[in-house]
């Protein structure tokens, strides 16, 4: 791992006035260049709040956030935007804007006052569109696009900012499986090729385990555990955070953890095997059945 993190949260706490407990309680997290970090946890555990603090959109009440070694609060707004890009969750995209307008907006923090985008800015925006395979959306209006297309445009806009840190708030929500994988492939590629530090909020444990270099698991405004997927996506942690007993098996090809959910209803007797059955699968099915029985009791 690189010596100095690009973006670091140090013992950050945030409390909202009406909330019974702090949204973030002494959270520390360091993002290194070229690494994809997943942020997981149940609804309301503080993932989005952490992302907003990391983006400088919310000032922590206690603790510090540092960007490239300097406190985030000492950077001007446009300085932050040149280094940190955010792809928000369910973001508003003005319907009348074309894809080109959306991506070019990513150059905003780089423009000099009263100047329009230069040919160099336009070239960067064009490359960003091509990188997310969305060049054909340049002339279309956002109001006529699907959720997946808008999501890719927002990713292109973030890339056009030429950031060092990319923050993705549930980038795969509302997308079908191919689009989920496409967006995460892109995030992974950018982290490798452009040496970006990427922090992405996930709900899907398997997607996170498949793509992330590190995973931070949150509950009640704290990070309970932070480490490689194999260490974090484990039955004990998942039981503690989500209160669900799951089985975790290694992916046959990659060895990364794969979460098997408990059966929703008692499984029927296993259907007669149509061929020689893998003994490991038998073990697995028996386990799941036992688990389901345990849950219905």
């Amino acid at each position, binding site marked *: 791992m690189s010596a100095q993190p690009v973006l670091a949260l140090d013992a950050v706490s945030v409390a909202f006035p009406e909330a019974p407990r702090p949204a973030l309680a002494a959270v520390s997290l360091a993002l290194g260049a070229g690494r994809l970090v997943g942020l997981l946890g149940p609804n309301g555990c503080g993932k989005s709040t952490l992302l907003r603090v990391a*983006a*400088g*959109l919310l000032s922590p009440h206690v603790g510090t956030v540092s960007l490239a070694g300097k406190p985030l609060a000492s950077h*001007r*707004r*446009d300085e*932050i*935007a*040149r280094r*940190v*890009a*955010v792809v*928000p969750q369910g*973001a*508003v*995209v*003005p*319907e*009348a*804007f074309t894809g*080109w*307008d959306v991506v070019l*907006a*990513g150059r*905003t*923090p780089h*423009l000099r*006052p*009263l100047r*329009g985008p230069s040919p160099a800015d*336009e070239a960067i925006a*064009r490359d960003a569109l091509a990188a997310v395979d969305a*060049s*054909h959306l*340049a*002339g279309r*209006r956002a*109001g*006529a696009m699907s959720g997946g297309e808008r999501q890719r445009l927002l990713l292109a806009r973030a890339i056009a*900012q030429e950031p060092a840190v990319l923050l993705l708030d549930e980038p795969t929500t509302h997308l079908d499986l191919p689009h989920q994988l496409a967006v995460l492939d892109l995030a992974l590629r950018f982290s490798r090729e452009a040496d970006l530090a990427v922090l992405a909020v996930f709900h899907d444990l398997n997607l996170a385990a498949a793509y992330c270099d590190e995973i931070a698991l949150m509950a009640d405004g704290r990070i309970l555990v932070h480490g490689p997927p194999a260490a974090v996506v484990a039955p004990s942690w998942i039981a503690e955070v989500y209160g669900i007993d799951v089985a975790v098996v290694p992916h046959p090809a990659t060895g990364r953890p794969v979460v098997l959910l408990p059966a929703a209803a008692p499984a029927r007797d296993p259907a007669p095997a149509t061929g020689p059955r893998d003994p490991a699968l038998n073990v697995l099915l028996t386990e799941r059945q036992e688990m389901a029985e345990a849950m219905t009791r």
Partner: protein
Amino acid sequence: MTAAAPAAAAAAGAFPRRRTASPILVAAVCLFLAALLALAVGKAPIPPAQVAELFLARFGLAAPDAPANAEAILFQIRLPRIVLAGIVGGALAVAGAAYQGVFRNPLADPYLLGVASGAGLGAVLAFILPVPRHLLAVGAVQAFAFLGGIAAVAAVYLLGRVGGSVPTTALILAGVAVSAAATAATAYLMYVRGDQLLVIYSWILGGFNVAGWQEVRLVAPVVLLCAVVMAAGGRVMNTLQFGEEQAESLGVPVARAMLILIVAATLATAAAVSAAGLIGFVGLVVPHATRLVFGHDYRQLVPTAALLGAAFLILADAGARALPGPSEIPVGVVTAAIGAPFFLLILRRQKRIAFW
């Protein structure tokens, strides 16, 4: 057959180069033609050829042979009135465009945060209180209207603040509340001072019948300065269309940018209202129609709306002067009478295009 040619054409079409000057140019031509027409028409029409001749003579380029009273009408009465109408129309349209951009709402108009009702109350106070008719170089009514408008918006801004931030919804609701209070106070004062009713009401309706170079000198610098500020904020307003949080993460200091734009729009509107009363319709419809015709890019929208607002109010005022009747028709009546059908026409022609 080659595949390269269509591909190149598609690439060229996908990334259109902006022709930044054209809407502004079109609007400038509109303004010029409107001013020319307005100089010619009136209770005493002056033929356009004579207008041109008088202008040339003014700069020593032709021998004056027009009647002397035509020259007086043109330069002492008609020209300052047209210039003032242009400045007021431009101010209202540019402020409307800025409010619509900042609040991301096509129904926002320059009076959204209470300038009009504050100015109205100020003007009524000047009419009924025993104040001298002139304060410094400014008429008391104008001064009170200007300050009343600014005071109302300042009150709205302070009431709408929640901690360090100013949520737009809170701001708009505070605007509604302050407007209602000021309007109620105005109505009460008009009721108890029935003797002043006609004077007050004709001021509220608005118009340019007493416009001279003095008013132009007072209003023009404020309006021009504020219009430049709002035009310079075009890119910020473009970014604001993504919403405040996204704009912030794209590098816009949102709270400060909004404050600067609101202050500029308020000063321009207060100056316009103090000179011409409460002229409706221009500030709502001109920026909206401009967006329908020329698109949503605020870098072009703001200056284009300013020029078209000027042209529109100059024409409306020319109509108010030229239409037959025992006395002049209030210009606010004309703006609505010309503007509403024109606006509906544009809406119908463009209704297939998403405009927000």
